[in-house]
C-alpha cells in the first residue's frame, strides 16, 4: 500500500489516441511537452498498446517503485482495456480511487468546432484541470455495515407467501406477519384461477410446501406491525399478536372442540367490508351465508394449523371447548403479545381490499335490491355449488338460468376508482366458464365498457364468446327491482345499436374493483411511506417498482396496484430478490458518500430537508449525519449546503474548486464566451457525450463536468466559476418527474433565488447562469440550446472578471 502521508503527489499521465483523432487536430507533442513540465507530473507519455504485457508491467513498476502514486488515463479506452488497466493497478497496490479517467475527445477535442489553436488551448486546459483534481484525490475503501439475515414479510396472501418462500429457499430467516388467523389472503376466497380453472388451494399448498418444511420460518398470525424503526440491514419491527387462545404446540387439529361449541356465527367474509354483506329485501334474496363455530380452523386457509377461538363470539363463561380438547390445547386466558424483531429487510405484501359496492347502490342496487352480488361473493357461490353444498343459503344451481355481469362496477370512474382494476374482465370470463361447466343451460349477459384481456388472456375471451348463450352488451346498466318474483331487472342502452336492452336476471354479479387494503394503509402510516394518488405503495415505477422511499423496505403484489395472481407472484419475488441485498450479513457501501465537516456546519438543516431519501439524522451533538444505508450518493446535500460543509468523497468541494480554478478562460479569443457546464450523470452528461460522438457540431466554448445529479451543484461553485472569469455556467439536469434522484433537478432550480442575490451582490449578471432539462437522447437539442446560450452570452458581453 502506498502511504499517503504528507508526500507530494506524483502523477502518471498517459494519453491514448489510437485513431489519432487528437493528434490529427492539435500538436499533441507540444501538449505533452508542456504537460511533462507541470509540477508533480512525473510521467507523461502516449500509449500505443494499453493492453500489452509490456505496457502493463511498466505501469505496475512505476507504481511499485513509487515513481508515481496516482494515474490519469486520458483517451478512449475500451471497457476491456479499462478492466485490464484497473486490475493491474490494483495488483500493484494502487487504490482504485487514485486513478482518473478523462477523455479529451469526449470534451470535443478533434470532434467539435474550433480552430487547431483553440482546440490545443482547450486540450491543455482540460489536462490541467484533470491534474489539479487528481492532486487532491484520496484513497478510499468501501465501508461494511453489519446486517441481519432475517426478513420480515408483512402479509400472508399469495404475494407474501411467495416472497417468504423465495427468502427461505435462500437460507434466510423469515418472520411472516399476517393479520388474519391464517394465510391465503384474497386468493383463498376464490373459487378458481384463470386461465386454467385451477383450484386456488392447490396453488397455496404448493407454495406452503416450502414454508412447511422450513425451520427458519415464524408465522405471526392475528398480528400487525406497530412500528418499523432503524435502517436497512438493522430494522427493529415491533409486532403485536392477538391471542389465538389455542396452544400451537398442543393443538393437533382434531376438531373435537368444534363439535361441542354451541355457537354458530355467520362468517363476515374478509372479502366484503359491509357489515351485512348479504342483504335481504322483503325476506327474499340471495343469501350466501357461511357459518362457523367460535372455535375454528384458521381463516381463510388452515395454515398455521393451530385452531383459533373467536372470543367475541363465545357465550359468557362457556369453556366447553377447553374441557373437550383431548390434548388440553385450548387456553382461554392467553394474552396479546408484543415482540420486537430485528430484521435486515422488510417486504410489504399487504394486498388489496374490494371496493365497497354499497357505494354504487344508487344505480347498481347493491345492498338494497335483491339478487345483486359482488364478484367475490360470486366466487363464494361458485365454490359452494362446486362442493355440492345444498342449504337454504345457497341458491340451487338449476335456479341460475339468467346471470348478468356488470363490468367496471366502480372502476374507471372519476367518482369512485379512477383507474382500471385490471383483473375483473378476465375474472368475469372465468366465472362464466365455471358457471357454464356447472350448468350448461345458464344464459349469461355481460354488460361491459371494454373487455380488457391482455396478452394471452385474449384466448379466454375468445373461448367464452364461442360458448352458447353468452351475450356481450356494451352499455352500462341500471338495476331495478323486478316486478316478477325472484329476479332482478336490468336496463341498458346497447351503445352499438342504440337500442334498449331490458332483461330480468336470476342473479346479477357486479365486477367490483380493487382498492388499496386497509392493512396496507395502516402499514404506510406506521412506516411513513408515501403512497401514490390512488393509495398504493409506489417506488420508481418504471425501473425500480419494488422500492419504497425507505431503503430496505420493499413492496410486492397488489399492495402496489391491481394485478392478477401470476403478476403478484412475480412482483413479490422481485421484492424478495432486492431484499436479499440487505440480508447477507453485511452491506457494502461505496465510499463515495457525503461527509459533513462539523467544524463548518452551522446546523441550518437544509441538507436534512433536501435529501430526497430523507437519510440524514442528527448525531449526539445535533449535527446532521447521513445514514449510509439509505444514502444514494446523489450529492444534493453538498449542493444545498450554504457553508460548503458537505463533500462527497471523490467529488469534494475542494476537488471541484481546484478544477474550476485551473480553467483558463483565455483558451478562446476574447469574443468567444467560455461556458462551464455541470451535467447530471444520468441524462445530460450522456446527451453531451452522444452529441459529440455523433459528430454534431458541439460548441468548443463548453467545458463540462459530470455530477451525479444537477442538485449536487452548489451555488458557491457557480459563483466561484463566474468570479474566476467564466462567462457562463450551464446546469443540465433531468426532466421534471424523471430525475433519478427524485427531485434533484427541481431543487437546484429552487436555489436560483439565492444564487441570483449572491451574483448580484458580486456585480455579476444572474443571466450568466442557465439551467435546462436535458433528456438522455436530447443530443441535437442540447447543442442547439448551448449555441443559443453562447449567443446570448455574446450579447451580454464578456465577464468583467475575465482576464
Amino acid at each position, binding site marked *: 500500500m502506498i502511504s499517503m502521508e504528507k508526500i507530494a503527489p506524483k502523477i502518471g499521465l498517459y494519453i491514448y489516441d489510437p485513431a489519432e483523432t487528437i493528434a490529427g487536430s492539435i500538436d499533441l507533442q507540444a501538449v505533452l511537452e508542456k504537460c511533462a513540465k507541470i509540477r508533480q507530473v512525473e510521467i507523461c507519455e502516449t500509449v500505443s498498446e494499453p493492453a500489452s504485457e509490456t505496457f502493463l508491467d511498466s505501469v505496475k513498476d512505476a507504481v511499485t517503485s513509487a515513481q508515481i502514486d496516482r494515474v490519469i488515463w486520458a483517451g478512449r479506452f475500451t471497457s476491456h482495456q479499462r478492466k485490464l488497466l484497473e486490475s493491474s493497478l490494483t495488483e500493484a497496490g494502487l487504490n482504485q480511487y487514485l486513478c482518473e479517467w478523462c477523455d479529451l475527445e469526449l470534451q470535443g477535442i478533434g470532434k467539435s468546432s474550433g480552430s487547431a489553436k483553440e482546440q490545443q488551448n482547450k486540450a491543455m486546459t482540460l489536462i490541467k484541470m484533470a491534474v489539479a483534481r487528481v492532486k487532491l484525490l484520496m484513497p478510499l475503501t468501501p465501508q461494511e455495515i453489519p446486517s441481519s439475515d432475517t426478513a420480515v414479510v408483512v402479509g400472508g396472501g399469495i404475494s407474501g407467501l411467495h416472497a417468504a418462500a423465495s427468502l427461505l429457499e435462500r437460507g434466510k430467516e423469515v418472520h411472516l406477519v399476517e393479520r388474519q388467523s391464517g394465510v391465503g389472503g384474497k386468493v383463498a376466497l376464490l373459487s378458481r384461477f384463470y386461465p386454467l380453472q385451477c383450484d386456488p388451494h392447490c396453488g397455496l399448498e404448493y407454495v406452503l410446501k416450502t414454508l412447511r418444511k422450513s425451520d427458519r420460518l415464524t408465522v405471526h398470525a392475528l398480528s400487525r406491525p406497530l412500528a418499523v424503526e432503524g435502517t436497512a440491514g438493522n430494522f427493529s419491527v415491533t409486532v403485536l399478536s392477538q391471542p389465538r387462545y389455542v396452544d400451537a404446540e398442543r393443538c393437533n387439529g382434531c376438531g373435537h372442540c368444534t363439535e361441542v361449541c354451541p355457537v354458530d356465527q355467520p362468517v363476515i367474509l374478509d372479502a366484503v367490508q359491509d357489515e351485512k354483506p348479504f342483504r335481504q329485501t322483503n325476506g327474499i334474496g340471495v343469501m350466501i351465508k357461511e357459518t362457523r363455530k367460535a372455535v375454528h380452523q384458521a381463516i381463510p386457509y388452515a395454515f398455521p394449523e393451530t385452531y383459533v377461538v373467536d372470543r367475541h363470539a363465545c357465550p359468557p363463561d362457556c369453556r366447553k371447548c377447553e374441557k373437550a380438547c383431548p390434548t388440553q390445547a385450548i387456553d382461554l386466558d392467553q394474552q396479546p403479545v408484543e415482540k420486537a424483531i430485528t430484521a435486515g429487510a422488510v417486504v410489504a405484501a399487504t394486498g388489496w381490499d374490494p371496493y365497497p359496492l354499497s357505494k354504487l347502490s344508487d344505480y347498481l342496487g347493491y345492498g338494497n335490491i335483491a339478487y345483486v352480488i359482488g364478484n367475490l361473493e360470486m366466487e363464494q357461490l361458485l365454490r359452494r355449488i362446486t362442493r355440492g353444498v345444498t342449504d337454504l343459503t345457497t341458491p340451487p344451481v338449476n335456479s341460475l338460468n339468467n346471470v348478468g355481469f356488470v363490468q367496471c362496477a366502480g372502476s374507471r370512474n372519476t367518482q369512485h376508482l379512477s383507474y382500471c382494476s385490471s383483473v375483473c374482465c378476465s375474472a368475469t370470463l372465468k366465472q362464466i366458464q365455471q358457471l357454464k361447466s356447472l350448468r350448461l343451460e345458464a344464459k349469461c349477459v355481460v354488460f361491459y365498457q371494454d373487455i380488457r384481456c391482455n396478452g394471452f388472456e385474449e384466448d379466454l375471451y375468445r373461448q367464452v364468446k364461442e360458448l352458447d348463450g353468452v351475450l356481450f352488451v356494451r352499455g*352500462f346498466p341500471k338495476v331495478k327491482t323486478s316486478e316478477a318474483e325472484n329476479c332482478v331487472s336490468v336496463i341498458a342502452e346497447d351503445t352499438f345499436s342504440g337500442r334498449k336492452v331490458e332483461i330480468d336476471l336470476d342473479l346479477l354479479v357486479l365486477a367490483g374493483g380493487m382498492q388499496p387494503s386497509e392493512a396496507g394503509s395502516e402499514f404506510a402510516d406506521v412506516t411513513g411511506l408515501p403512497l401514490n394518488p390512488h393509495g398504493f405503495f409506489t417506488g420508481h415505477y418504471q425501473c425500480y417498482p419494488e422500492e419504497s422511499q425507505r431503503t430496505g423496505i420493499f413492496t410486492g403484489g397488489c399492495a402496489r396496484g391491481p394485478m392478477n395472481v401470476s403478476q403478484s407472484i412475480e412482483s413479490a419475488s422481485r421484492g424478495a430478490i432486492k431484499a436479499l441485498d440487505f440480508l447477507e450479513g453485511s452491506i457494502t457501501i461505496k465510499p463515495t458518500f457525503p461527509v459533513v465537516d462539523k467544524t463548518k456546519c452551522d446546523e441550518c438543516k437544509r441538507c436534512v430537508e433536501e435529501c430526497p431519501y430523507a437519510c440524514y439524522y442528527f448525531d449526539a451533538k445535533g449535527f446532521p449525519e447521513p445514514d449510509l444505508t439509505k444514502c444514494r450518493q446523489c450529492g444534493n446535500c453538498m449542493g444545498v449546503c450554504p457553508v460548503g460543509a458537505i463533500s462527497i468523497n471523490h467529488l469534494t468541494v475542494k476537488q471541484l474548486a481546484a478544477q474550476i480554478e485551473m480553467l483558463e478562460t483565455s483558451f478562446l479569443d476574447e469574443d468567444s464566451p467560455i461556458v462551464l457546464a455541470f451535467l447530471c450523470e444520468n441524462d445530460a452528461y450522456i446527451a453531451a457525450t452522444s452529441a459529440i460522438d455523433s459528430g454534431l457540431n458541439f460548441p468548443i466554448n463548453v467545458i463540462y463536468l459530470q455530477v451525479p445529479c444537477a442538485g449536487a451543484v452548489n451555488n458557491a461553485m457557480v459563483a466561484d466559476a463566474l468570479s474566476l472569469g467564466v462567462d457562463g455556467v450551464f446546469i443540465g439536469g433531468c426532466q421534471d418527474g424523471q430525475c433519478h434522484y427524485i427531485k434533484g433537478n427541481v431543487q437546484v432550480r429552487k436555489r436560483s433565488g439565492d444564487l441570483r442575490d449572491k451574483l448580484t451582490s458580486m456585480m455579476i449578471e444572474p443571466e450568466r447562469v442557465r439551467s435546462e432539462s436535458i433528456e438522455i437522447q436530447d443530443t441535437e437539442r442540447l447543442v442547439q440550446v448551448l449555441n443559443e446560450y453562447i449567443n446570448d452570452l455574446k450579447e451580454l458581453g464578456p465577464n468583467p472578471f475575465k482576464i
Partner: protein
Amino acid sequence: MTVQIEKQMSGNCKDMEHDSYSCVQCGYCSSCCEVSFISKDSPRKVIRYLQRNDMEGAVMSPFLMLCKQCQTCSLICPQNVDIAQIMRELVLNRFLTY
C-alpha cells in the same frame, strides 16, 4: 397530430365550453335517464353527434324535447361530463338558430 384532428372534430363544442370529448360512450347516462328510450335518441347519442361534429344532428335531436333536466346523467357520468348542461345549451342553440 392525432390530437389536433380529434379536437377539430369536437370543434363546435368549444362554444359550449364543455368537454363532450371526454365522453367514452359508456351508456351510463342512457341507462339512468328516465326518458331515454322514448324517442329514437338517447343522451349518449346526442353527445355522439357532438363528437362527430354533427351540430345539426345534435340540436335537432328529438331527445332534447324530452330532457327534463333531472341532472341524474351529470351526476353519474364516470368521466364527469356535465351532460345536463350540454342538453340545456343545445336546446338554447336550437331555439336561437333554427
